[in-house]
C-alpha cells in the first residue's frame, strides 16, 4: 500500500485543484493517516473529489473526458492521448469507476506504459516531480507564518469561493514544465501573493517574539504526602487529565510541558487548545516568566503581560483607589496622570463611590469589574490570557467584551487559552493543541480545532 505522505497528498491536490495543498489541509490528512491505519490514498482521493472546491469550482458540469484531460494537464502539463483516454473512459462507463479511482489509477498503476512512449513517460514524470517539488516548498513556506496561512485560504468556505490566492497558486503550478523550479522562484511567487508590498506577510512576521528549543517543565510536588505515594500510583493509574507523573529520588514530579519546540513571531495570535491539565496554563506562565523551564532554551523578546487570575496587589482591607494606585505606580513609576486613569476606571467599571470603600466590602462581581478595568486600561505588546480571566457579572459583560476585544486587538502578539471556540475564532488565527504537556498539533486555527475535535485525538491523547 502506498504511504500517505506530503508528496502523495500534493499530487492529489495538484490533480484535483491544480494548486499546492494548503497547510491545514495537508496537516489534516497527515494526522488522519497517523491515527487511522486503514485510511488509503484511494479513500483520500475520493474525499477530495467530493469536496466543494472540486464539485462547485472545478467540476462545473464537465464531462468525464474533460475531467480526465484536466487531470493530465494539471499533473503533466498536457492532454491525454487518445488511446489512454478511451481506456480510462471505458473504466468509468463500463466498470463504474469513480473519477477518484481514475486519478489513483493514473498516478499509481503505471497504465501509461501501454499507450505512451518511454520518452514521453519520462517527461511526464519529470514535470510531475517538478510540480510536486514546488508545491511542497510552497506549502512549507506558507506554513511558516500564520499571515501567509491566512492569505492562502479560500475567500469563503460556505458557499465555496476559491479566491485570488488559490487561483494565482494554480496558475503558478500550471506554468511549471520540465524546467527545474528553485526555492527562490517559489519564494518570489509567495511574495507576489500580497498586492501591497508593505503588507507583505513575509516582511511583517519576520521577527521572532518567542523561540523555544526542547523546552521541558517539571513541577516538583513539595509535600510530605507525596513521599508516601507509591510508584504503583504513578505508573499504574491512568491519568485522564494533567501532565505525566514521574518519580525521582526527590519525590513526585508533574511533567507539565514536554519537549516543546516552537517559534512565535511578533504579531501572531495564538489559540492554546487542549483538555484540562494539558499544559495550556503552564505554557502561559512559562512565556510570562512566572515559571522557568527545567530543560531547554527559551528566548523571549517581548514583554508578556499575563492575565491569569483576578488578583490585586493590595490588601482587601484597602480601598479600590489604593488598588488602582498600586497598579498605576507599578506600571508608570509615578502618579502623574493618575487622576485621569482613576476617573476612567470609575467610569468604565461603574463602581462610582464604591471605589472609596475597602475591596473586602465588594461583591465578587464588583471585584471582577475593578480588576478587569485596571488591567485592561492600557495596551500591551503581548498578552497571555487564560480563560479563567472572566469579565464579571452579566450587566458588565457587554461592555467588558467590547473593551476586551479592543484590548486584545491592540496587542501585537496574543496568547489565548480557552475552551470557547467562539472566543478563539474571534481573536486567533493560529492554533496550538496541547495534550499531556506536549504539542500535538500546530497550524491554522481551523485545522487545530478540527484536529482537537477528531475522535482520534481523544483516543490517542486523552484516553491513553
Amino acid at each position, binding site marked *: 500500500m502506498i504511504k500517505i505522505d506530503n508528496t502523495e497528498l500534493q499530487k492529489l491536490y495538484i490533480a484535483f485543484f491544480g494548486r499546492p495543498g494548503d497547510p491545514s489541509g495537508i496537516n489534516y490528512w497527515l494526522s488522519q493517516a497517523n491515527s487511522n491505519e486503514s485510511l488509503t490514498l484511494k479513500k483520500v482521493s475520493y474525499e477530495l473529489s467530493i469536496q466543494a472546491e472540486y464539485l462547485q469550482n472545478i467540476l462545473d458540469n464537465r464531462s468525464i473526458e474533460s475531467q480526465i484531460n484536466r487531470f493530465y494537464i494539471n499533473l503533466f502539463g498536457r492532454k491525454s492521448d487518445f488511446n489512454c483516454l478511451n481506456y480510462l473512459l471505458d473504466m468509468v462507463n463500463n466498470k463504474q469507476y469513480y473519477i477518484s479511482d481514475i486519478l489513483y489509477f493514473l498516478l499509481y498503476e503505471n497504465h501509461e506504459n501501454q499507450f505512451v512512449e518511454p520518452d514521453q513517460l519520462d517527461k511526464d514524470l519529470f514535470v510531475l516531480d517538478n510540480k510536486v517539488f514546488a508545491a511542497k516548498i510552497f506549502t512549507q513556506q506558507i506554513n511558516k507564518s500564520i499571515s501567509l496561512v491566512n492569505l492562502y485560504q479560500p475567500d469563503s468556505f460556505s458557499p465555496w469561493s476559491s479566491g485570488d490566492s488559490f487561483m494565482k497558486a494554480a496558475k503558478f503550478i500550471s506554468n511549471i514544465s520540465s524546467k527545474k523550479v528553485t526555492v527562490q522562484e517559489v519564494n518570489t511567487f509567495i511574495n507576489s501573493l500580497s498586492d501591497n508590498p508593505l503588507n507583505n506577510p513575509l516582511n511583517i512576521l519576520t521577527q521572532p517574539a518567542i523561540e523555544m528549543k526542547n523546552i521541558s517543565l517539571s513541577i516538583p510536588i513539595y509535600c510530605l504526602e507525596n513521599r508516601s505515594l507509591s510508584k504503583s500510583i504513578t505508573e499504574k493509574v491512568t491519568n485522564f487529565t494533567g501532565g505525566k507523573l514521574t518519580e525521582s529520588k526527590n519525590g513526585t514530579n508533574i511533567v507539565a510541558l514536554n519537549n516543546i519546540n516552537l517559534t512565535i513571531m511578533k504579531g501572531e495570535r495564538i489559540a492554546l487548545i487542549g483538555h484540562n491539565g494539558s499544559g495550556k496554563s503552564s505554557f502561559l506562565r512559562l512565556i510570562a*516568566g512566572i515559571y522557568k523551564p527545567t530543560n531547554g532554551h527559551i528566548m523571549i523578546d517581548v514583554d508578556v503581560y*499575563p492575565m491569569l487570575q483576578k488578583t490585586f*496587589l493590595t490588601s482587601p482591607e484597602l480601598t479600590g483607589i489604593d488598588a488602582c494606585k498600586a497598579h498605576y505606580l507599578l506600571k508608570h513609576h509615578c502618579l502623574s496622570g493618575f487622576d485621569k486613569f482613576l476617573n476612567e476606571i470609575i467610569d468604565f467599571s461603574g463602581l462610582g463611590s464604591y471605589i472609596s470603600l475597602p475591596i473586602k466590602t465588594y461583591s465578587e462581581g464588583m471585584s471582577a469589574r475593578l480588576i478587569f478595568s485596571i488591567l485592561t486600561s492600557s495596551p500591551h505588546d503581548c498578552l497571555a490570557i487564560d480563560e479563567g480571566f472572566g469579565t464579571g457579572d452579566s450587566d458588565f459583560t457587554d461592555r467588558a467584551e467590547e473593551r476586551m476585544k479592543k484590548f486584545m486587538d491592540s496587542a501585537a502578539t496574543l496568547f489565548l487559552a480557552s475552551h470557547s471556540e467562539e472566543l478563539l475564532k474571534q481573536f486567533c488565527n493560529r492554533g496550538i493543541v496541547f495534550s499531556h504537556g506536549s504539542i500535538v498539533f500546530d497550524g491554522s486555527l481551523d485545522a487545530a480545532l478540527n484536529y482537537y475535535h477528531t475522535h482520534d485525538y481523544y483516543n490517542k491523547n486523552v484516553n491513553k
Partner: protein
Amino acid sequence: MLINNLKFAYKTRRAWWYTATSRSRARFARTTLGSFWLGFSNLLSIGTLGIVYGTVFSVQDFRSYFMYLGVGLVIWNTISSSISNSPQLFAHNSSNIKNMNLKPLFYTFEEWSFQLQTFIQSFALVFFVFLFLKFSLLSNFLISSWMPLLNLFIFIYWFPLIVCLISVRFTDIAQLVPIVLQLVFLTSPILYRKESLGELAWITNINFIYKILDSLRISILKGDVNYQDSILILSVNLIGLFFTLKYLDKEAKRLPFLL
C-alpha cells in the same frame, strides 16, 4: 543579575513603598488613632515592663532604665517582627507570585519597607517622649546613630529574607522561628543590663542580633559609636545581603511550586 535586581527594586520603589504604606494603613483601618497605636503600645509595654523589671532587678535609676528598656524594646520589636513574619512572606503573596510576572524581590522590599515604616512610627513617638527625660538624646541620635541605624535597616532586610527562603523549602523551620526568637530575647540584655549576665556575658559576643541592637542603643543613649564594630557588622551585613540576594535569585525559579 544582582545589578538587574537592584535596578528593578529602584525602578519599582514607589510601588512597593506605597503597597507597604497601604498595609500599615490597612492594619489600623478601623481604629481612631490609626498608626499612633504603634507608638502607644510600645509606651505601654515600656511603662509596664519598666516598673516590674525595674523592681525585680532593684534598679536605682528608673529614668535611665526606662530609656534603656524603651529603646531596646523598640529595636527588638522591629527585629523580632521582621523575622517572625518572614516565613509567611511568600505564602501571603502566593496568588500574585503564581499569576503575575512580578519579581519576588518586589514582595521582599514591600515587607522590608513595611517593617521600616512600623519602626519609624514606633520609634518616633517613644523617642519624642524620651526627649522629655533626656534632651541630649536628639543630638546623640543625629550625630552618632546613622551607622548603627544603617546596620539595623540592612539587617532587617536580608536576615528575615534568608529565614523566609529556608522556611519555604523546609517548613519545619517556620515552627522553630518563634521559639528561637524567644530564646534570643531572653538571653539578650534587653530587659536587664549586660552586667547581670555575669560570667555568661560572653554569649552576647556571639549574638549578632544583640550586636545590631546594642550598637544602636548605645549610640542613642550615650552618643558612643564603636566604628570598628560597626564596620565589622556592616561587612557581615553586606556579605549576608549579597548571598541572600543570590539565594533568592536561585530559589525564585522554584518559588511558584513551593507555595
